[in-house]
């Protein structure tokens, strides 16, 4: 799949030479290897901190804890590769939860409520997408605005109340394990979506267009890609997936409330960037993001299980990882570029 990334770069940045493509390929390979190394270290440290770390129990509860973030991160990966961002995902999650509660109180069947929530989430995402693509506003500003807007709407829908009388059949499904194994049902859902997003991103023309847009939007536009429409689709999908995450967290906790999942967007973005997706777009893989989620989950669980480390450290370590994942590749690229410029006196080779 790295080879495809390279092909894309060639197409998008029309005329950029072979060396850069090779460079991207090598970089990605190294980044994923680095993540695997970090995961091994984390697991070793985790096991040293608590003998309970490498257990099925840890795996089950740890993956449940991250399930909503993982879902949102998958959709966000596509958005960020297209050089946009969606900060409103956690608020869409809350709005979906609130809507679910309200419709449940109205007496609608849950099987009907869930698709309604997902459609509502898709509409929220499309709203972001329209503001970004049709009005040409920066997605950072738009989604900071809708972050507050959707969260506010969630409070309008159910206020301070929390609704807890969801049917046990469904809450058990969200909380339970897959066919008697220690693998939670939510993880199966995540795996299905991960495969779907992976296939779309890495082996369809649509996925290639996403990379191309992220690498160079203007070049993509002049090459005939429907940049605006593709971005609109990505925001819509992001909203729909966030709403799905809202359904999952509501059923998993058997509680719907407007204040659910505050700050989840930042964890999701951390996972995406840590997974080797460039914040400037055009680069990254689903596999990398999944590895990053595994790493984050491992760190969280290790710190939670340790007897002496306060849970403040989860935030500190997550923060360090986020900065590191943006800084690391950036520094590496700079070093490489200066070195290359020195060795080959090619004036066209400068950074874009």
């Amino acid at each position, binding site marked *: 799949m790295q080879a495809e990334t390279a092909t894309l770069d060639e197409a998008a940045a029309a005329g950029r030479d072979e060396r850069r493509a090779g460079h991207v390929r090598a970089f990605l390979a190294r980044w994923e290897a680095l993540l695997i190394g970090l995961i091994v270290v984390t697991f070793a440290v985790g096991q040293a901190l608590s003998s309970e770390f490498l*257990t099925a129990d840890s795996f089950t509860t740890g993956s449940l804890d991250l399930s909503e973030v993982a879902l949102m991160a998958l959709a966000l990966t596509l958005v960020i590769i297209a050089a946009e961002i969606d900060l409103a995902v956690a608020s869409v999650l809350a709005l979906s939860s609130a809507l679910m509660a309200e419709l449940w109180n109205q007496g609608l069947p849950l099987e009907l409520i869930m698709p309604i929530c997902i459609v509502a989430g898709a509409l929220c995402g499309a709203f972001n997408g329209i503001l970004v693509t049709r009005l040409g506003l920066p997605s950072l500003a738009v989604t900071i605005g809708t972050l507050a807007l959707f969260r506010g709407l969630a409070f309008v829908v159910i206020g301070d109340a*929390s609704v*807890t009388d969801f049917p046990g059949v469904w809450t058990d499904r969200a909380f339970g394990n897959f066919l008697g194994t220690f693998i939670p049902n939510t993880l199966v859902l995540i795996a299905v979506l991960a495969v779907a997003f992976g296939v779309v991103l890495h082996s369809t023309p649509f996925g290639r267009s996403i990379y191309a847009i992220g690498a160079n939007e203007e070049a993509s536009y002049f090459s005939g890609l429907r940049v605006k429409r593709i971005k609109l689709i990505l925001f819509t999908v992001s909203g729909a997936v966030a709403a799905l995450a809202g359904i999952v967290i509501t059923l998993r*906790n058997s509680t719907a*409330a407007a204040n*659910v999942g505050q700050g989840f967007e930042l964890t999701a973005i951390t996972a995406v960037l840590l997974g080797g997706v460039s914040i400037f777009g055009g680069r990254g893989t689903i596999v990398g993001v999944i590895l990053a989620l595994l790493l984050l989950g491992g760190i969280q669980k290790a710190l939670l299980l340790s007897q002496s480390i306060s*849970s403040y450290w989860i935030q500190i370590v997550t923060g360090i990882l986020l900065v590191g994942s943006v800084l690391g590749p950036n520094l590496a690229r700079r070093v490489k570029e200066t070195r290359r410029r020195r060795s080959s006196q090619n004036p066209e080779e400068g950074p874009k």
Partner: protein
Amino acid sequence: MINPVRPRVLRVLLAVLALAALLVVSACGSTKNDSSSSSSSSSKKSAGADPNAKLKTGLKTVSIPKQLGNPYEEFEHSGVTEGMKELGGSNRISGPTDAAASSQVSIINAAVQSKPDALIIAGNDPNAIAPALKQAAQKGVKVVSMDSDVAPDARSVFINQVTTELVGKNQVESIAKQIGNKGEIAILSATANATNQNAWTR
């Protein structure tokens, strides 16, 4: 939060709470000090329990506040630690950094994995954390809620430091005094789903 109870009084009260928590753990079901207004009859409250039974020493507990860094919660849970120390056991405080139910669930799951004798928890949401607490009970960990109750079937006993009605009444009375018995008042609450705060507000 206006707190009419003086710190020393509170500290004594907390020691009592910790003692009561221990009684529950060792005798499995003292009804003493359970001033919960709800008429919950938990299945674990066996009628024959002796509140004066000798305590096991060396008990390990984990107490889970609503949130780290909240002065009231810190004080309350440090009281549990002190009480446990006095009684020859040990307590570890492990709380979430935000007062959200979902963060508390992760903390509960991790705490249960460390196999304590009991969990002492101030709940952020009565129902959202119930499944995790029930799983804890299945694994032989006694669950004591305090300060802010959880769903009655998810814990053995609830220890209330002061009836929620009393807090609300006292607060309204003192406010009424300050504003001369008339005018509108605004009520500020912290976590929308916390049992105790909702009851105070009412």
